């Protein structure tokens, strides 16, 4: 089921939690909403589910306007952040609930509901626990039951809010791989929320990076990592270094020296240069480069991470060097980013 979010805005008591968000989710896709806490991920997920109504805009499931439908009619599977299992029902009753409350001819007979619950329990690898109560399960087991319960109604879209948030690292990694497998076998359109970039980049087909109620970037893990399109994404995903620069006639200047990089889509004025520590090339002389003195140097796995002081001691940038490089303290190093981006500074009080 394609899901299309069109110009959705959501305010809580005049506080805007989402500003004009648009997003197309393709059928069968596994997509991650990634962003820091408070960026509006849960709100977006709840809007898709119909647990919140948008202040403005609409949400389409395929060709039909889902905004007009209630939660019950949308047929989405929602896995809540803290699972929200029914505490007084057994595991099997929890999983069968969505079938039990169906009306008329849609409601399967009891034995069939139980059979389906046991099948799903098998799928989430919890066979034998059907008569337990939620408080007799571990966190990871509850998570699986919540997922089985959501899948029992054969949802058109599966929505998961921080599915592994409350679990320890070991279980997390395990469940992550397992969720990918389940997704591949069932083929549900799946949206999950996370604030863990590793989880998002590893698991999702596409990642939606969010910040302060806005979508910053949508793309594959490679897009988000190699081609960040905003300072926020540079800072939030992976490591990055930044330097204040000036753009003049398409040439980038660092203080009174040219860096040797050209841009054509950035207006003249103050700007910021972003690059990843490993996306650099070392230079011998400096006729257009960034040069600095080594402040600190440490070994990180197979490479050397060096902090350079650029332009006196005003700015520090991190670069990655081959392990053979000595990078003695106070020595001078010149380099130029190979993959980088310049973002013009906001037009504020500089005028």
């Amino acid at each position, binding site marked *: 089921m394609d899901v299309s979010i069109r110009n959705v805005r959501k305010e809580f008591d005049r506080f805007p939690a989402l500003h004009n968000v648009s997003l197309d989710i393709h059928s069968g896709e596994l997509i991650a909403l990634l962003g820091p806490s408070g960026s509006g991920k849960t709100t977006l997920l709840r809007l898709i*589910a*119909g*647990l919140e109504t948008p202040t403005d805009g609409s949400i389409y499931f395929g060709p039909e306007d889902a905004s007009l439908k209630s*939660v*019950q009619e949308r*047929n*989405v*599977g*929602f896995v*809540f952040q*803290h699972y*929200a*299992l*029914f*505490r*007084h029902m057994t595991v099997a009753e929890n999983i069968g*609930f*969505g079938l*039990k*409350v*169906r009306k008329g001819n849609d409601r399967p007979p009891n034995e069939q509901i139980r059979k389906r619950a046991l099948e799903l329990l098998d799928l989430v690898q919890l066979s034998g626990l059907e008569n337990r109560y939620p408080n007799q399960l571990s966190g990871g087991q509850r998570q699986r039951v919540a997922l089985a*319960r*959501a899948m*029992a*109604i054969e949802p058109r879209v599966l929505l998961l809010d921080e599915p592994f948030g409350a679990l320890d690292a070991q279980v997390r990694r395990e469940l992550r791989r397992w969720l990918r497998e389940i997704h591949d076998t069932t083929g549900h359109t799946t949206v999950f929320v996370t604030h863990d970039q590793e989880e998002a980049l590893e698991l999702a087909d596409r990642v939606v990076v969010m910040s302060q109620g806005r979508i910053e970037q949508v793309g594959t893990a490679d897009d988000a990592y190699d081609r960040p399109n905003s300072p926020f994404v540079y800072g939030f995903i992976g490591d990055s270094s930044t330097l204040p620069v000036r753009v003049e006639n398409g040439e980038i200047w660092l203080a009174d020296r040219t860096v040797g990089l050209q841009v054509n889509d950035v207006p003249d004025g103050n700007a910021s240069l972003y690059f990843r520590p490993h996306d650099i090339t070392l230079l011998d002389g400096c006729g257009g480069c960034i040069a600095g003195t080594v402040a600190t140097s440490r070994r990180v796995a197979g490479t050397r991470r060096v902090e350079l002081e650029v332009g006196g001691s005003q700015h520090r940038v991190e670069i990655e060097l081959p392990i053979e490089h000595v990078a003695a303290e106070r020595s001078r190093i010149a380099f130029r980013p190979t993959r980088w981006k310049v973002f013009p500074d906001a037009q504020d009080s500089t005028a």
Partner: protein
Amino acid sequence: MVLEATHHMSVADDLSAGRAEKIKPRDGKRPNPVSESFGAKVALTGLALAFLALVLLLPLLAVFVEAFRKGPAEFFLSLNDPDTFSAIRLTLTVAAIAVPLNLVFGVVAAWAIAKFEFKGKAFLTTLIDLPFSVSPVISGLVYVLLFGAGSALGPWLKSYGIEILFALPGIVLATMFVTFPFVARELIPLMQEQGTSEEEAALSLGASGWQTFWYVTLPNIKWGLLYGVLLCNARAMGEFGAVSVVSGHIRGLTNTMPLHVEILYNEYNFVAAFAVATLLAGLALVTLVLKSILEYRYGDEIAASAKH
């Protein structure tokens, strides 16, 4: 290096030696730092027990002693009276109407307050507490003002043959007013603590609002609800003040058990008065036992507020 290490060690030794000295109990028995002394404990407990005995146990005992003063035969004889029977019947009828209605209204009010955000919520919460803060006599008088001969409503209803005051409806209304908070007050904190996520899960799985309430909300609050109903019932059967104002004290017709006790007492019929009183005391004891069982068995499923 070596020198430094030894130096550290000696410091550590000094420290541990000093600590051991401080911890070592002087007389071999460690005093519990957060506990009162033994004497204070005994004195306080004794005081509390003496107070309870004087204020609660003694009167309860007196009721039974007075009732059986002239022997069990006289006790049963005095109960065997048509007016007494009618008082018992009326009390049971009133409770049978007022308690279920308050159960429904209490659940509805608690549901609305705990699970939804709306304007005037704080006001509604305060309103629910009103019967607790108003003297029961005033509660009764309100109904006299509303439905009395001098009011607009009373004579109008009377012209259709509906009697409110000095009849069953008035007594039920007054009882409901006084006992309304019990169920709602019990449920609100419980439902607030449980939050709305299970309900949201049920809705997302396709359950209707009614199914969600029936399968999810109600089972989660059932013990708390029973607890509230128990207290509500005890008060409904025992209420004196509010009922006294609206009942009119018509023997055999509008006298509830508490009112009947008063009448018998005023007529110097002590054995009969205390005999009926033992029934009420018995009800109180049964309530107390059930309440304790609920608290013991399902303490964590009853709101935190009830566990004091």
